[in-house]
């Protein structure tokens, strides 16, 4: 089962997320897909060090020889938080758009903003 490791799965997840991002028109589901893409890179980084006889990077608890690489774990902590921040703000913006256009369909919002742009001026 050597092909079934975190890296392979994470790349497949990246692909699924991309498809969701392109093919689903609902903005909320687009954001979920974007979250999946981001999460897949985190899985990829964490899996770089994972091995069956590994031990968590805690001194005094784990055997020193078995400790897995702690650097990817440390950096993905930042990545997780950043992904959450992006998601929260994107969600707020989707809420603002829905309040204005009463829809989460990306094509319709695209069309309506383009029409509005033609009609009204960009500055007031």
């Amino acid at each position, binding site marked *: 089962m050597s092909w079934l490791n975190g890296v392979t799965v994470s790349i497949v997840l*990246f*692909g699924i997320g*991309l498809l969701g991002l392109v093919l689903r028109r609902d903005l909320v589901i687009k954001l979920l897909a974007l979250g999946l893409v981001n999460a897949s890179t985190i899985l990829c980084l964490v899996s770089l060090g994972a091995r069956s006889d590994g031990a968590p990077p805690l001194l005094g608890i784990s055997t020193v020889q078995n400790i*897995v690489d*702690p650097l990817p774990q440390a950096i993905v902590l930042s990545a997780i938080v950043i992904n959450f921040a992006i998601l929260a*703000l994107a969600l707020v913006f989707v809420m603002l758009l829905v*309040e204005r256009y009463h829809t989460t369909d990306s094509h319709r919002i695209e069309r309506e903003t383009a029409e509005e742009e033609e009609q009204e001026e960009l500055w007031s």
Partner: protein
Amino acid sequence: MRHVSVSLVLVAVGLTAAFCVVVLLGFGFRGPGIADTEPALSVATWIDVAQGTGARNIVSAIYLNVRLFDTILEVLVFSVAVLGVHFYLTARGRPEPVESIPESSVVRVAADLLLPLILLIGLYVTVYGHLSPGGGFSGGVIAGTGLLLAAIVLGTKTVTARLGRRLLDRLEWITLLGILIVGLVPAALARTPLVDLLPAGSPGRVGSGGSILLYNGLIGLKVFVGSWVIIRHFVDHRGEI
């Protein structure tokens, strides 16, 4: 799905599949530790580093000492998100009334019992971040989410009032400034900023690990307040809970 044109679906599936294949083939991952050359950083280095800082959790030692600047930037990103949510969701004309669901006493009792427990867990995860898994960020989020429970029962206004609205608003920037000041203190002592000045202490004790505990505490407080602000706005915006 059916509104999407067929050609777009075909192009998307084709490109994505090709992307996956290219990345899978090119990645060259043959299992952990199997590299073409000796990696620049090894686990042994990190163990030395962690022992130098006095922290037992190696990840914490990297996250809050070696790569502290990343963490500060990440806290800034989180602050920007909190501010953004606050800015874009408040000044929108009509604030909707928020009501709690008063009817079920079971929920109320459960919340009364659970809330202190969740806050305690958050505190533990924060304070013991350098000894066991966890840290300021996860601790703060756990405690902040615990308040969601209180918001369900009491309504966000009551919870905010109990926590003290002005205190919350101030904590938001006091903690941020605190983190930056702790990072800048060495500059005042003619050392480079972000250097850890506190002693390593004896590993395994709460008071060990240099300034990791200090940072964890500040970040925990900051994230606790921040996640509550986010939750409050989202709850308020739902109209009812």
